[in-house]
């Protein structure tokens, strides 16, 4: 599962951060999940919990609270400046699957609704990151 890989990278990062700061408790973290990642939040949360327990057992590092925040995806055309949302586009299941693995794959499936260009920027909702 892709969710597992993402959860793993988050816990790994937090464990490394705690270690480098000689701490063993991380009070609260916010995990921002971009819409393009198409994550199943329940599965993601489950993976985070499992891995968090593992971090406690193996590294004695306690991650107390985490909160998952979803971020909507939006795009801006580099050619004409038009701004739009993921909901404004219609994508096949196949395209969605590709984009959820590698958000940049969006350039193969999405075009600016106004001018048709493939040259756009993913303004928000691209990836997963940690906010402390």
């Amino acid at each position, binding site marked *: 599962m*892709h969710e597992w*890989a993402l959860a793993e*990278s*988050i816990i*790994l990062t937090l464990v490394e951060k705690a270690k480098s700061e000689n701490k063993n408790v991380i009070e609260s973290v916010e995990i921002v999940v971009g819409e393009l990642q198409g994550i199943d939040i329940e599965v993601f949360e489950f993976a985070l919990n499992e891995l968090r327990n593992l971090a406690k057992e193996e590294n004695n590092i306690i991650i107390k609270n985490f909160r998952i925040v979803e971020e909507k995806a939006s795009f801006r055309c580099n050619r004409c400046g038009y701004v739009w949302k993921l909901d404004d586009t219609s994508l096949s299941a196949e395209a969605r699957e590709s984009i959820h693995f590698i958000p*940049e*794959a969006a350039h193969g499936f999405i075009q600016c609704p106004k001018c048709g260009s493939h040259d756009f920027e993913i303004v928000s909702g691209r990836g997963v990151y*940690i906010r402390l």
Partner: protein
Amino acid sequence: MAIDPRAAAIKKNLEKFDAFVAVMSSKGGVGKTFSVAILAYILANNYDVSVSLLDMDLTNPTLHMVLGLDMKSVKIEEEKGIRPFKVSAKMELMTMAYFVQESSIPLRGKEIENAVREILSITKWNGNILLVDMPPGFSDSHLEFLRLFTLSKTLIILVTTPQLLALKSVEKLAISLLQERAPVAGIMGNMCMDVSEDEKIRKTATQLNLDYLGCIPYIAGIENYYGSRLAEIIHRIEPSIKKAVEVIVKRGKR
């Protein structure tokens, strides 16, 4: 403070490799992709090395074509991450073609950086040596490679044909890389027609104080051998690039 969790995942996913071998040339079309495919076949078939392949040409991946794969019909395999496509018992491939099939994706610098990081943070490899096929040029993908990969485990093989423009291009690239002490393993030739062409490339390597790794001969009708038939031409190529293979195998056994 925002933290990108991919860095930790990339480190962990790449840790298992004994060596990273990147094939580069700033001139396009000199045979980087073909060289990567041939080296992979030789290592996997004749040296029993478990080879992982990464096509870093994100906007125009072609390595899968030389390997004879139709990425349209493959289903992405997931298991706590993504499994590279299994080419054969000893070879696996990760490529953007896995995700975008036939469409070509235009990417700006920042996006190349992001896509490279995303691929490396979710790919769960199985091989011992990672061979990387680079796009032509000396730009975003190459810079990202030099930044993300552990250079003490890396070998850069520069590829050139005996043509003047290719030789001059490889010379410039070699100088830049050497200035920053990048791990250049040597120069390998491709499409040599005769001994004099072989000598031209050797001379360029010698002038740069780099090892000359041999030259793959020009092969007429090369496209007929793409895919599993590459095995049929290995014996015609391997003796000419023994040095390149040895350099990699030696590193892989450390």
